[in-house]
């Protein structure tokens, strides 16, 4: 493959509700380059622009300025559903990533066709079913025996695990994880995180993971970036991460931003 970076964000800017009292600059010039295989954790205070950055990449809205290169192609002006061909996404709300009224195998079949044209062939084949069963079994949640159950019947943790599986079923060029364990209880969050790490490693994925957990941010991945007021103010490489404690990280934040880190969901331990 070509040796261009996997993702390049160049001077991304976005202001919501411009020229109104609700005006909010969410991205104030984000520059970021991810190499193939990078697993980058993203931290920052409330409204720092972490989720906005992920949504800009996914194409939920169009940016005011700047460019997005994914795998060498310019996707800045591509509609969201076309970018989906290259992206795997897991959201904070476990309800968002799956279709509750459809069953488990139908959800997987939808994900299996991400980025392909959908024609008038039957929506799911017997051969796929075997693959899904095997993949579900690897989650160790017993879902392989409930493939015909509606996803709405699953718990939040199960739905997040399923969403992760769906996001990686067809190898994405970039995996976007937007605080995907924040709505789960600590034990389930731990499980989903372990699965995340496993899937990223096994499939050698490039990933961006927003997290509210400072410890996870340092423990996972090979890079950590910190955002503040719509900019990246700190970018730690693997070696720097290893020598960093949560206290160091907080001190760094204060130094770079000139204020204390405030995030009402932030977990420091």
């Amino acid at each position, binding site marked *: 493959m070509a040796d261009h970076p996997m993702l390049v964000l160049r001077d991304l800017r976005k202001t919501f509700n411009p020229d109104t009292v609700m005006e909010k600059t969410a991205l104030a010039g984000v520059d970021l380059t991810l190499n193939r295989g990078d697993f980058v954790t993203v931290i920052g205070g409330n409204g720092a622009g972490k989720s906005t950055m992920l949504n800009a990449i*996914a194409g939920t809205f169009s940016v005011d300025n700047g460019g997005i290169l994914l795998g060498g192609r310019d996707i800045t002006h591509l*509609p*969201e*559903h*076309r970018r*989906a*061909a290259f*992206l795997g*996404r897991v*959201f904070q709300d476990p*309800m*968002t*990533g*799956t*279709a*509750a*009224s*459809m069953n488990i195998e*139908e959800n997987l*079949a*939808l*994900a299996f*066709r*991400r*980025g*392909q044209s*959908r*024609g*008038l*062939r*039957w*929506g*799911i084949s017997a051969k796929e079913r075997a693959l899904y069963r095997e993949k579900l079994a690897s989650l160790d949640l017993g879902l392989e025996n409930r493939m015909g159950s509606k996803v709405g019947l699953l718990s*939040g943790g199960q739905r997040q695990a399923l969403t992760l599986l*769906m996001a990686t079923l067809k190898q994405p060029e970039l995996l976007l994880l937007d605080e995907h364990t924040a*709505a789960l209880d600590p034990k389930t969050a731990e499980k989903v995180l372990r699965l995340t790490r496993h899937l990223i490693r096994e499939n050698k994925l490039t990933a961006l993971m927003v997290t509210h957990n400072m410890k996870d941010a340092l423990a996972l991945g090979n890079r950590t970036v910190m955002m503040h007021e719509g900019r990246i103010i700190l970018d730690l490489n693997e070696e720097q991460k290893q020598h960093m404690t949560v206290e160091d990280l907080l001190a760094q934040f204060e130094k770079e931003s000139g204020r204390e880190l405030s995030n009402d969901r932030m977990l420091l331990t």
Partner: protein
Amino acid sequence: MNIAQLLNQLPGAVAQGLIWGIMAIGVYITFRILNIADLTVDGSFATGGAAAAILITSGVNPWLATLAAFLIGLLAGLVTGVFHTSMGIPAILAGILTQLALYSVNLRIQGIGTDLGSRANVPLSINKYKNMLVSLRNVGSFILENPIWLMLFITLVLIGLMYWFFGTEFGCGLRAVGANQQMARAQGINTGLADIVGLMISNGLVAFSGALMAQYQGFSDVSMGRGAIVIGLAAVIIGEVIFGRLFRNFALKMLAVTLGAIIYYLVIQVVLWLGLNTDDLKLLTALVVALFLAMPYWKSRIRTRKRKGGPAHG
């Protein structure tokens, strides 16, 4: 109140229910699968009737005329779909706009070949057009010409076709759009296109049903679709309430809608027989549908009250 009189009316109610049942399947597609309340149907039902009537009176084979009505219904759905997706108009308003526009269009279609170029009513006598697909004249008999047999056949074929379509890759994508737009887009599904195609198929079926209705009753009228959406919703809801626990399969769910439409017309016959004035029918239907639409909301309120103090989400 003569019971024989009522019994005499029942076959007609079944036939009407079957015809309206096709329109109700169209409503089911938008309301339940796409999660859109599409008010185009009041107009497109009459469009189907108008198109079929004008084609049949000019000598076109009734099968072809009915098929043409389906195609014109697709166009009506396309207009609403474009209003909604390309022009950003809320779905409910987009449907109302198309419905209003169709009133003029329907007058014009029915006026084709007349001096005025516009007409409110087209007579379709079975004596004159003997090869029409269905007619209320034969509804009381046991012969093969009884419209109930053909309507049953058409309904089953349509349910089969819809079952196939919504099981294909494209159809599954369409269902995903109705279930969760955000998820659908994340899986690479063009939600705008899905909405448009869904609205087209729905209105195609509605116009098809209107074409059959015009033949059945022996005329087409610009106002024949008034309140169609409410009758469609009534059929969907009756079907769900009675057969919801029993019918889980998608094809059976559509069958439940058809049965819902039949039951609706049977109940109407009974209340009319009991002495209700025909003029009060729409009021009664609207109230009953409102009541059933409120059920899930009331149920969820009772549930949250029982769980007061619990977490807001989880």
